[in-house]
C-alpha cells in the first residue's frame, strides 16, 4: 500500500532575469488505489508538479514521498530505477518514438531495464492486447490515430506494472470518443496496488476522480473556491469523494 505525500513543494527557476515559481509550497496526499485529478489553468504548475513526482525534475524545496521512498532525495542510478520501475508516465503529446512500431515502443523500456528479448516481446504483446491494439502492433506511430497512440503510450507506461501512473493532459489531443476510451483505461488502472495522477483541465476527468487537487494562482485562490472545496494551503485546494461517473463505479484493474 503506497501513499503519496507532497509537502511544501516549491519549484523555482530563472528565466529572462526573473525568478519564476511555477509551484509554490504545494502540499497534498493521496492514497493507494486512488484516481487523482490535478486541476488548474494553464501555467499553474500542473506539469511541473507531475515532473517532480515522476522524478524528472528536482524541486527547489519541499519533499515528495511515495511509500517508503523519499523521491526528492533520489539521485543517479536510484533515480533512474525509480523512473523505470515505480512510475509510468503518459505524456500529453503521446511521445512515442517515431522510428519504432507500437510493439517496439512498448518493448523499449523493457530493453532499457535489461529484460530479455523474448520476455519483453511477450510482455509487449500482452499489454497491447489489454489496450486493444494487438492488431496494430506492427504499425508505426504515424500510422495510428491519436487515441491509438495514447493507448500505446499507456501500454508503455504499464510495462513494469508501476504502482504510480502519472498522466499529463492525456486527453488534450483526442476527440470525444477517444477521450472516453482513454479515461476508461486510466480509471481502470487505479486499483489497490496502483495510484493514478492525471493533470487536466477537462471536467470529464474530475467527475471520475477520487480526489481533485486544484492548483490555484495565489491572487485568485479565494475567489475561486467552489462549494465543498477545502483549502489545503494558500495555493492548493482538494476535493474528496467526488461523485463518480455511473458507468465507472466498478473499477477493474487492467
Amino acid at each position, binding site marked *: 500500500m503506497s501513499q503519496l505525500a507532497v509537502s511544501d513543494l516549491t519549484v523555482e527557476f530563472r528565466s529572462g532575469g526573473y525568478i519564476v515559481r511555477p509551484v509554490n509550497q504545494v502540499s497534498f496526499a493521496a492514497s493507494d488505489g486512488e484516481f487523482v485529478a490535478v486541476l488548474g489553468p494553464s501555467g499553474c504548475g500542473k*506539469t*511541473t508538479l*507531475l*515532473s517532480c513526482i*515522476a522524478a*524528472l*525534475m528536482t524541486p527547489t524545496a519541499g519533499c515528495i514521498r511515495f511509500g517508503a521512498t523519499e523521491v526528492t532525495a533520489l539521485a543517479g542510478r536510484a533515480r*533512474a*530505477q525509480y*523512473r*523505470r*520501475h515505480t512510475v509510468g*508516465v503518459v*505524456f*500529453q*503529446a503521446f*511521445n512515442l*518514438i*517515431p*522510428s*519504432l512500431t507500437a510493439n*517496439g515502443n512498448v*518493448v*523499449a*523500456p523493457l*530493453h*532499457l*531495464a535489461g529484460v530479455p528479448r523474448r520476455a519483453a516481446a511477450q510482455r509487449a504483446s500482452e499489454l497491447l492486447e489489454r489496450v486493444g491494439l494487438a492488431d496494430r502492433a506492427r504499425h508505426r506511430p504515424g500510422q495510428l490515430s491519436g487515441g491509438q497512440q495514447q493507448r500505446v503510450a499507456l501500454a*508503455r507506461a504499464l510495462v513494469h506494472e508501476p504502482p504510480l501512473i502519472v498522466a*499529463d*493532459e492525456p486527453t*488534450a*489531443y483526442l476527440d470525444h470518443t477517444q477521450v472516453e476510451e482513454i479515461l476508461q483505461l486510466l480509471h481502470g488502472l487505479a486499483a489497490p496496488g496502483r495510484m493514478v495522477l492525471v493533470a487536466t483541465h477537462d471536467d470529464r476527468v474530475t467527475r471520475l476522480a477520487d480526489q481533485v487537487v486544484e492548483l490555484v494562482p495565489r491572487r485568485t485562490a479565494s475567489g475561486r473556491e467552489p462549494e465543498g472545496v477545502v483549502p489545503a494551503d494558500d495555493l492548493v485546494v482538494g476535493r474528496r469523494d467526488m461523485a463518480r461517473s455511473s458507468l465507472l463505479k466498478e473499477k477493474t484493474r487492467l
Partner: protein
Amino acid sequence: MWSITVHDLRYRSRQFLIAVVGAGLLFSMTLLLAGMAAGFGAEVKTTVAGIGADAWVVQRGATGPFTSVSTINATEITEVEAEPGVRRADPIVVAPQVARVGKRLADVYLVGARPGGLGEQRHHRGGTAVRSGDAVVDSRLRLGMGRHFFLGARPFTVVGIVRGHSLLGGTPEVYIDVGVARSLVFADQPYATAVVTTGVPQRLPSDLEALSNAQVMHDTLRSMDNGIDSINNTRRFMWGVAGLLVAALMYVSALQRARDFAVLKALGSSSTLLFCGVAFQAVVVTLAAAALAVGVARILKPVLTLPVAIPMSAYLLLPVTSVVMGLLASGVALSRAVSADPASAFAAI
C-alpha cells in the same frame, strides 16, 4: 538501446544514406590521393629496380641520373668498368624527349641501354630492343605492339611493352639501344649520362661519384616533394571535411531526436546509454562510407592518368580512422544527449 538505435538508422535511412555517399566520396578521394602520393614513389622504385644495377656512377656534383643531365665520356666509362668491386658496367643515356604518334605529342623519358646489358627490360610483353628502330615502351604511352612513333625525326617500332615504368607522375619511359640514344641526345658522341654497375666500385676517378639505388630514388622523388606535400595536405583536408559532414549529420540527427532523448530518459535511460547509441550510429555511417570509398577508389583508379598505387596501409587505416572520426563526430551530439531534460518530454508539441 541498440534495437532503438538500429530502428532509428532505418527510419532516417535516406538522411544517413546521403551522409554515407558524401563521406564515402570524400574518403575515396583520400584513398586515391594516398595512392597518388605513393604512386610517385612506386614508379621511381619500378624504374630503378628495372635497371638492375647496384650502383649508379654520375659526374660529381650531378644530383642524380633522372634529375640532371651530366655526361660521362668513353674513357671514364672504360675506367669504371675496370674499377675494383665492379662486376659489370654499362653506359646508359637518360633524357626527356617528346614522342610523336601520328598527330599526338607525348612527353617521354628516353632510356638508352646496351642490348643484353643492365637497363635492358626483360620483364615485359613482347621482345627486347635489339635493332636500332626497336623500342620497349611503357603502357602509359598507349601504343600497342608493332605501332610506330617518332623521337625527333627518327622512327621507332614498339617491340615490347612494360608497365609502371614512368617518372614525374606518369611520364612514360621509352627503352631503346644506347647507341641510338647517343645519336638522338649527343649527336653520336660516345657519351653516357650515367654508368650503371653490378657490384659497387671501391674507388672512382675524382670527377665521378657512385650513388646507391636508394640515393637515386630519393633524388628522383625530391623533385616531387612539393607535389607530394600538397597531395598529403589535401588528403588531410578531405578527412576533415568528411569528419565535419558526419558531425553535421549527427548534430542534426540529435536535434531531431531531442524529444526522443527526453522520453528515453524519462523511461529510465542514462545519458551514457544515449551517447552510446549516437556514437554507434556515427560509427556505422563512417564504416559504410569507408566500404563505399574502397569500391569507388577501385573504379576511379584506372581512369586517372597519374600513377596511383594505393598502399595496403591506407586500406587498413581507413576503417580505423573512420571509427575514430565517427566517435569524434558523435561528440558533437554528446551535449544534446547529456543535456536532454527528461521533463521536457512533458512539453506539448
